[in-house]
């Protein structure tokens, strides 16, 4: 009975897996030369990802990733009001190919993320760019249990943020301003 109580206490302290916050996954610094003159794009679809399960693993699902990606594209000016009557120039597809969080210290979590992207020019329907972007991020907790869970959350959010930061740089190189 005592063991059972102890187990329940441990489970209560450990808590459930926190969910990721899309707003925390948007890179804070995005530089775009001239967003008003740049070409625009629409986000076609996001596939892959994992819904959070019963374990204490924190994962990113396609809905949360989509929200973060839209926020990033908007901040970078790619979703800026499209020119009147003109459709967007490009279509972006994203597939969350893999994600993994590993505990690498007593209180440190490192998250790895691999996302495959494809940019299609809408006028020609041709791929102008496709690549898989790999990112990782390490977060540290301060005390055990709840802080470790927070670190799991921050590590996943950080890996997404890094990935989206790289994506914007890559799109910038492909999509030249008019």
């Amino acid at each position, binding site marked *: 009975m005592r063991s059972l109580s102890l187990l329940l206490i441990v489970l209560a302290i450990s808590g459930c897996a926190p969910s990721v916050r899309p707003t925390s996954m948007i890179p804070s610094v995005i530089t775009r030369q001239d967003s008003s003159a740049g070409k625009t794009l629409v986000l076609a679809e996001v596939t892959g990802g994992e819904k959070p399960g019963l374990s204490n693993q924190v994962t990113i699902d396609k809905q949360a990733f989509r929200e973060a990606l839209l926020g990033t594209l908007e901040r970078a000016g790619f979703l800026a009001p499209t020119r009147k009557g003109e459709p967007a120039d490009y279509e972006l*597809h994203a*597939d969350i*190919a*893999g*994600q*993994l969080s*590993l*505990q*690498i*210290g*007593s209180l*440190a979590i*490192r998250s*790895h*993320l*691999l*996302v*495959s992207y*494809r940019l299609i020019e809408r006028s020609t329907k041709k*791929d102008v760019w*496709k*690549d*898989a972007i*790999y990112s*990782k991020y390490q977060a540290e907790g301060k005390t055990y249990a709840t802080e470790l869970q927070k670190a799991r959350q921050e590590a996943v959010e950080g890996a997404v943020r890094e990935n989206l930061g790289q994506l914007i740089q890559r799109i910038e190189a492909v999509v030249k301003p008019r």
Partner: protein
Amino acid sequence: MNVKRFVPFLICPLFIGSCATGTPMTAIYEGASLTGYKTVEITPVSNDTGKTLDFDVAAAITQHLRSLMQSKGYRLADTVAGSDDVLILKSSLAEYESGSALVRWFATFEGATICTVRSSLIDKRTGNALGEIIVPRIVSGGGLYSVGADRWILGVVASDIVDEVDKRIRGR
């Protein structure tokens, strides 16, 4: 209090984690297919860690990749003349930390051995990129039972890559 009852609980954690945890992450690009390749060109693994390591980790992984590919029945491009379609496996060591089994003995999760390799899959004839494989592996426990992890983790990572390539070539 019967102390013997608790001995297994004290010993078990020492073994837990003596294996390398982690799983491969694979992205195959839209419209790309790996099925049918019988010959693979394994380029020497580059060291992209930015660190000078105690031994030639990249060369050790290259050797593992070569022997594992051959053991799966694939031909290595540099051992046969005039090959048909060739799949290039271009890999880089993204991160490596040798860790310490002694530190792991005293504190699980500390002193972890870490190895991450990134592999690009390229069709030699067209030069087209077909996909990417990332394998992050870590040994974070096991204490003294994990002695030598700094070497055997390389074989585990190489095996993950080869298994993943083989799976895709066989269309599984």
